[in-house]
């Protein structure tokens, strides 16, 4: 793949939808369950993870000629760990409130299998720029899922949306903080607890599968209409 010109369209589509970290690869479920009780936490976690994905994609791809296959896993872990440490210290310094909320889950980005997975599957076999693009869009796809799951759990579980967003994005974004169900909405605690994460994730995966099936069906029907062979849609 590295000999050909990188196909950015495919990289972007893979990261956002087709090979989405959570919805298609089912990776990174531990941080997903743990931090998505609110949309803001999901967004913060997603942004930190995206940063690490881009940085590790850059480093692993740059040094891929020196890393022998036998020791690649420890080297990847070292690279990722040092970058996560940078992120953790940076968040502690500049986003201290969010740092306190996310707590242990920031250092645990190291163990996020999605990052090691991209280093192994993509960055160690591709040039620097495609690796960074791949890391970025994998991260954006991950962040989008975190925000959607966090939003659903937050709205149903506590009746708010983007609560504490100003802690993450600054005072300008305090307009994002919405109270969806005001008054005496008591909150559906089950959705805040881990089962809620699994239930919402299950529904999202089912939703993606329904959409993918409909797209394959439509593409097949169109191809048949034009009298051509049905083109095989890339399935997840």
């Amino acid at each position, binding site marked *: 793949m590295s000999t050909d010109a990188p196909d950015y369209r495919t990289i972007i589509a893979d990261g956002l939808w087709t090979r989405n970290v959570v919805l298609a690869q089912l990776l990174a479920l531990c941080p997903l369950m743990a931090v998505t009780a609110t949309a803001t936490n999901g967004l913060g976690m997603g942004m930190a993870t995206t940063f690490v994905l881009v940085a590790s994609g850059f480093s692993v791809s740059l040094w891929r000629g020196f890393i022998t296959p036998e020791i690649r896993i420890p080297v990847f872990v070292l690279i990722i760990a040092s970058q996560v440490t940078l992120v953790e210290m940076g968040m502690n310094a500049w986003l201290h409130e969010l740092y306190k909320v996310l707590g242990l889950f920031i250092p645990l980005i190291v163990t996020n299998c999605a990052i090691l997975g991209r280093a192994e599957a993509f960055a160690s076999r591709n040039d620097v720029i495609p690796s960074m693009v791949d890391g970025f869009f994998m991260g954006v796809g991950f962040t989008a899922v975190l925000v959607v799951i966090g939003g659903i759990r937050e709205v149903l579980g506590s009746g708010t949306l983007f609560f504490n967003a100003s802690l993450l994005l600054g005072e300008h974004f305090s307009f994002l903080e919405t109270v969806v169900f005001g008054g005496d909405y*008591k*909150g*559906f*605690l089950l959705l805040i*607890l881990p*089962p809620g994460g699994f*239930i919402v994730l*299950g529904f999202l995966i089912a939703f993606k599968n329904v959409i993918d099936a409909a797209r394959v069906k439509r593409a097949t029907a169109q191809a048949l209409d034009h009298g051509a062979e049905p083109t095989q849609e890339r399935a997840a």
Partner: protein
Amino acid sequence: MSRAKTISAPFTHAITSVPRTMLLVMLALAPATAFSLYQFGWPAIILFFIIIGSSLLFEALSLLIARKPVTPFLLDGSAVLTGWLVAMALPPWAPWWIGVLGGFIAIVFGKHIYGGLGQNIFNPAMVARIALLISFPLEMTFFMQPQPLFAQQSPNFLQAMDIIFMGGINIDALTSASTLTQIKVLQFDGQSIEAATGLVSYLPTAMLGVLPGSMGEMSVLSLIVGGVFLLALRIISWHTPVAMFASMALIAGIAHFFNPAFHPGMWTHLFSGGFVLGAFFIATDYVTQPVSNSGRLIFGAGVGALTFVIRAYSIFPEGVGFAILLMNAMTPLIDHYIKPRIFGRSKSGEPLASEQLERGRQ
């Protein structure tokens, strides 16, 4: 002279069917339900029909989404029975949205997510009860003294609509803690549980069903009548309920003997909360209990022991629902290890040698 037509084997005669089983279980539940509805009056009756109606509605919607035939599945009675058991597991004067949510969780999350009738791992009614209990602890522990229908304090139909739909309960004097809750409060305070008001004359009052509690926690006597009816018709086997009662009686009896100030007696444990309802009607669910008889003994003993542990040492006063769900999760494991011996083979699955068979015949 015989003019009988020749019909070849195999011959099967199946009297059992899903609708018949569901109908008989409902029949067995009817006395206890009628008694509870009488004891709690119009609010309980309205809530009961809200839950069954919403269960049927969500069953129909789930079947439509799954593109399954709606009418036969809707009429087989399984959704009605699930809703009925959810109603038995809720406080009788709970607000309407608790009932609708209960029907939704039981049918959608408890059953159809796994693929519908017969596919679920956990008992749907208990899934609904536990999800609601964890999410809405206040509403789910709102008990009151029974207000028999047509009694002076019992709300009439319009007042009942107000209570269920508008949350119009302003008669605080009627609310009361269940016996298990009283015991739990005293345990937390480090006091002797003998101060719990229900304990003095526990056995007769529990038998009659005049203590506060959920719908299915009322009359132990009518629940036992229903359970014996199911046993007599062989709808349920005796293994699960007997193992549940035996393990609870044994553990609770020993605990009470050594520390009577902390542990209530055996009869209180056996006949309070949802233990009897769970033993006869919920733990015996065909889908979620082990298939072999010895497996069911282990399953029942596990439910009894876990119920005791949760009641005595957790923050929850009642633990039957949790215990049944936990043992439901163990069921595939039990079924994996406890397999009955195949006819003509040894325990390990080897064919029996001919001399062993001879010895067996003698």
